């Protein structure tokens, strides 16, 4: 009986000991498991966070550089991302992070990932859009270049055409005469003697078949043997004639007249210089800035 009792007590002692052991062991295991899980979660969040942030930093650089119209929207998104990043980092830095904190961090990380993905897709759509616009711009540039080329060609053609018209509407001259004459007893007689000559009589004819003129102007330039342009009326020759090549020429006389196309217009006038020089006088006629005829006469 004593043995049986001892055995029973021993059994109970063992049972109690064993139970106590088990119960203490179970508690220990529970604590250890919970920490490991928490650390595991934290590590994985860190990894996701780091990955997200690393990829985000790379994208941010290009995103920030993507200026333009979407800048405002982009800035808003970036602000949101920076805010989430800061909040997640703050949670993860906590040494006494609770389960709820970690859950919050997970949600925020997911949100951050969504935002980054959204940004990536937006960025790529901006890039695509940029490429499309650039392609359109290139096309437009080409068209503008074509147009410019066309316009230049047109301008050239117009210039050539107006030059042709101007040339066609410029008088043709004929019968140009520079006659030094002596006047004796009211009679005029041509002479080349410097001592006898008293005036020059200038005559010429002009013709044009395509233009009428209300106020045609033909410029007469008589250059004396000493090289100076002969001027007998300071008021008549008070301006300069501009030639086709932009040269300004002093002239002797400007003849103004009305002209009907096809008409052979004969013009003449006389000049009485203060003196006559020995040598060759040359006469040039200009219309529309172009030389239309010339002649010369030598006095002895």
């Amino acid at each position, binding site marked *: 009986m004593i043995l049986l009792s001892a055995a029973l007590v021993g059994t109970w002692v063992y049972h109690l000991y064993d139970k106590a052991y088990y119960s203490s062991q179970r508690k220990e295991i529970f604590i250890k498991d919970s920490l490991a899980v928490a650390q595991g979660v934290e590590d994985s969040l860190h990894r996701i966070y780091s990955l997200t942030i690393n990829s985000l930093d790379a994208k941010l650089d290009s995103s920030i550089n993507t200026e333009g119209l979407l800048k405002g929207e982009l800035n808003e998104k970036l602000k949101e991302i920076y805010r989430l990043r800061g909040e997640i980092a703050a949670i993860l830095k906590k040494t006494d992070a609770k389960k709820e904190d970690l859950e919050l961090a997970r949600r925020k990380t997911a949100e951050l990932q969504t935002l980054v993905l959204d940004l990536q897709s937006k960025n790529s759509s901006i890039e695509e859009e940029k490429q499309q616009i650039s392609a359109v711009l290139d096309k437009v540039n080409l068209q503008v270049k074509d147009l410019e080329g066309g316009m230049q060609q047109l301008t050239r053609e117009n210039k050539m055409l107006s030059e042709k018209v101007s040339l066609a509407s410029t008088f043709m001259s004929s019968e140009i005469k520079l006659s030094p004459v002596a006047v004796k007893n009211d009679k005029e007689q041509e002479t080349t003697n410097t001592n006898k000559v008293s005036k020059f009589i200038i005559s010429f004819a002009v013709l044009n078949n395509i233009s009428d003129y209300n106020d045609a102007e033909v410029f007469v330039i008589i250059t004396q043997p000493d090289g100076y342009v002969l001027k*007998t009326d300071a008021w008549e020759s*008070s301006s300069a004639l501009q030639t086709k090549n932009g040269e300004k020429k002093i002239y002797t006389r400007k003849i103004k007249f009305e002209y009907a196309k096809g008409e052979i217009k004969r013009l003449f006038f006389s000049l009485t210089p203060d003196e006559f020089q020995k040598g060759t006088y040359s006469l040039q006629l200009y219309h529309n800035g172009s030389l239309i005829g010339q002649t010369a006469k030598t006095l002895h």
Partner: protein
Amino acid sequence: MFAPVLWGNAQANIKPRYANSRICAGIEVGSKGVKMSVIEIGNNAKSSGAFYILKDTSVNTDFISFTPATFSATLNGLTSLYQTALSGYQIPAKNIFTVVSSGVKMQAEKDKKYGQINNLTDSFRLRINEPSRQVEVVDVMKEAKLSHLGIIPENRRFSTFLFDIGSGNTKGGFFPGNDTETFHLFQLDWGTKSVANLTEKRCEADNSLPNYYKQLARVLAGAENTDIVYAVNTSGAYPLSDNIAVSGGIAWAVATLTHPELIDNPIVSVSFDEVKKFSEKLYRNFDAFNAIFLTGAINRKAEKDAATAEINRVLKVFDHKALLAGTGLMIKIMRQFESAFETKHFYLVKNGQVGWVSAYVDQYIDK
């Protein structure tokens, strides 16, 4: 009509353009001093309106101060210039004209010093031993009329309105009928210097060019509204004049700077727009007005040299601001004749200051 002048060796320092032209000298006692111009008048001067200045000399004497010293300096200057013309250039006495300007007459009357003018002319006659020498004291009307007769050729006599822009005033006029008896005088109390002075005054402490330009516009607008419009309208010149001729220093300056290639032309034809553009360029790009740039298109060396010298002379006589003031005044007067309905021709007369000599030649020589 005129007897040709015979040339002697002493005239070697005067180089006339033509062998058979007349050489005359005009000696004028002005407010600032005595001025002599030796001019060459061609046979066709009356019809062509061309005369050329061969010599231009002046002695500063400030006669209108009417002090014994300035009187003496003026008498000496007048006598010396007369002797130079007579003996130095061998110009016959009948071809030397001596006058006292309207400016001196006006000042003498104002200061009650007219006696000094009589003393001067009497002393001068005594000194040169020519008791009958005529020294006419001209009034504004006579001066303006003589200028018109001397500058404007006969064929434009009755269709041309001439005005001379001086330093302190502007005067001129035209012949309204078909004779030279009646002359309509045009007068303004504005000249290049008076406009410039008033502008300077308005600038106060800010002497910058933009401020000067701004103030100049105000001065000119005031002059136009108060005087110019009225003076032109009441003169009756607009309907009777096809040609508007401007003389005076500023006309010479504008003609020289706008058309250096016409250096030999005593008359330069311009348009109203041309003068306006010139004025704008003066303000915005004054550096462009240098002899090298302006004479670039002139090929003949003699003409290029002459144009260079004349441009430099203009830039010496007028500074930037004076050019702006004078041109501005000229534009304001020209504007009264510019119309979309009628074309007026504008001419700048380079040697207008000696036009009266040419008129004296017509009036007195060989009579």
